[in-house]
């Protein structure tokens, strides 16, 4: 039979165990970003362009009937150039390379930027085929970001290219 002092000691130690578990299961409270900060997530996954050549009638005739594709396209995809500007100042610029051993996969990017909440002029420019100069996709807008808001900048050809969400 345990002594009363041992029983009291056990109760205290079991209580300390529960308190330790209970405290660190929820505390201290963690704040990932400041109270007046918003997040811009720039992320896209897109196949770069490639230069296809139209086969001539002679070339097509020489091919087996089941392989007479009118266009001859290389497997390799182009790098993609991406630029993000905030109020006219460059915030991010990169050339994304296609994935895959044969460089025939998508080019991807995932970046997040913490900015003070407020109104910004955001411009995103993309060139998905670097044989051409400049940018073939541009999206520019005045955006007001609330504290803790997440603004996603993505690309989807079905949604008209670059878009803010």
């Amino acid at each position, binding site marked *: 039979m*345990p002594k009363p002092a*041992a029983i009291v000691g*056990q109760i205290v130690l*079991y209580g300390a*165990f529960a308190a330790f578990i209970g405290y660190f299961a929820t505390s*201290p409270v963690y704040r*990932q970003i400041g109270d007046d900060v*918003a997040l811009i997530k720039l992320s896209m996954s897109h196949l770069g362009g490639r230069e296809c050549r139209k086969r001539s009638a002679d070339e097509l005739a020489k091919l087996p009937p089941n392989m007479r594709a009118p266009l001859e396209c290389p497997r390799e995809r182009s790098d993609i150039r991406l630029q993000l500007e905030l109020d006219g100042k460059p915030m991010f610029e990169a050339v994304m390379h296609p994935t895959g051993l044969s460089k025939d996969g998508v080019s991807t990017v*995932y970046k997040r930027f913490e900015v003070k909440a407020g109104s910004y002029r955001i411009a995103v420019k993309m060139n998905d085929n670097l044989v051409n100069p400049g940018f073939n996709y541009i999206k520019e807008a005045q955006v007001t970001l609330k504290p803790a808001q997440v603004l996603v900048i993505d690309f989807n050809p079905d949604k008209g290219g670059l878009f803010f969400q």
Partner: protein
Amino acid sequence: MYASLRGNAQTLFERSEIFFDAFFGGTDNPLRHLGALGLYFLWLLVASGLYLYAVLDTSIDGVYRSIGHLSQQQWYLGGILRSLHRYASDAFVLVMMLHLLREWACGRYYGFRLYSWITGVPLIWFAYISGIGGYWIVWDRVAQYSAIATTELLDWLPFFNEPTARNFLAPDSINDRFFTILVFIHIGIPLMLILGLWAHVNRISRVDYLPSRNLMLGTLASLLALAAIQPALSQAPANLSLVPAALPLDWFILFIHPLTDVTSPAAVWALIFGATLLLFVLPWLPRPKAQPVALVDAANCNGCGRCHADCPYEAVTMAGHPDKPGHRIAVVDPGLCAACGICAGSCPSSTPFRSQERLVTGIDMPQQPVDAVRRQLEARLAGLGGTTKLVVFGCERGVDVRSLDAADTAAISLLCTGMLPPSFIEYALRSGADGVVVTGCRDGGCDFRLGMQWTQERLDHRREPHLRELVPQDRLRLVPASRSESRQLLVAVTEFRTELETRMAASRRPPTYSRRKNHHA
């Protein structure tokens, strides 16, 4: 530096265990049964998890609603079980890490313990993967933060074609099937954990699959009280268009995310892979030289199987005797043998009353043969003087008894107290000693797991070879003491000596014995 660090950690654990012993005793002391306690928490997780799984709706809106329903409408059962599930997972992680630290501090990670150590390392990964995934299922703000932080961390590794964090980019990025897969992962990984635990304890005998009943009830009551006082509740539902603000984070499991935020994914992966690699290579870093393993003497092994029954590491098996048809013989697996000598203590041939000049037993330790122990005992008994002659048998892993050696005290240190055949106590008393002290590790603290338990049972006539009835119990004192308790042992020995001197005349003595010596081996 490293040895000093480990030594300090060991001392810290020992002192904490002794402190807890004062309230719990050895059997109920949580620090002495961390592995079994971890298993117990795992079973609590499985039991509470089965109920949660049964009521979980795995659609995007359903997961949050169905889990929230438990806490609000069914707080008395589902809510309590949900809280128990969360807190038991934290307790599991806590005791798992303490178990790891304690085994390291006690130097239990190389040699014959290599297998258990190595198989334990992946279990840490399983525990954290399962724990982190479990938080996602609730799909509240904490789940959102953890899911995004985990995938961002994973994306640093060059494994994925597309960033996995894109799965949590916007509210319409995920669908119902995500949670179905998540539930399967949250069940599958723990199943792998249980399988890994089976391998982890596979090479030891008489595994403590559960702690003592008192310890189970005490910890369960603590967690239930915590569940009632501070129920585990969901945060606001996940909203991928907002960054979760103040997060009441579970630091036992999710600490890795803030750590990534304040450092970098590269630093965290370096820490994770570095720590894993370190744990894997630790057994091969400089360590004490391996001790010689037990050797079987075919001529003296009668195949009784006691060594097989007593070995804490299943290193002894029984096989057909090569010279005696129909008989068995003990066989030692050198890879499993801990060199504790418990087998020598269990062997019926280890009795010092045998008349052979050189005592050869059935199974023995080359570094400290039973014959050497008998010679040492006889030599010390012959030289003892004073009014009360004491023999103290101790353990190399416990208090160093050699400091007690004096003109009236013969101190003999063994590989483990479990190596002591009880007949040696009778032999000492019948050969001139007035009393015998046997000291070994505290309950639950034996370096070889079962040495002190077997000794206690042998002296209490509950285990073979047992101490014969003719030995008066008042001339024997069993003193459990940890490595650092030399002062307590000295006090116990002094008290025992005083007691013996007080009632010397009234106390019965076993008949005197003088070994008839011959020279037959």
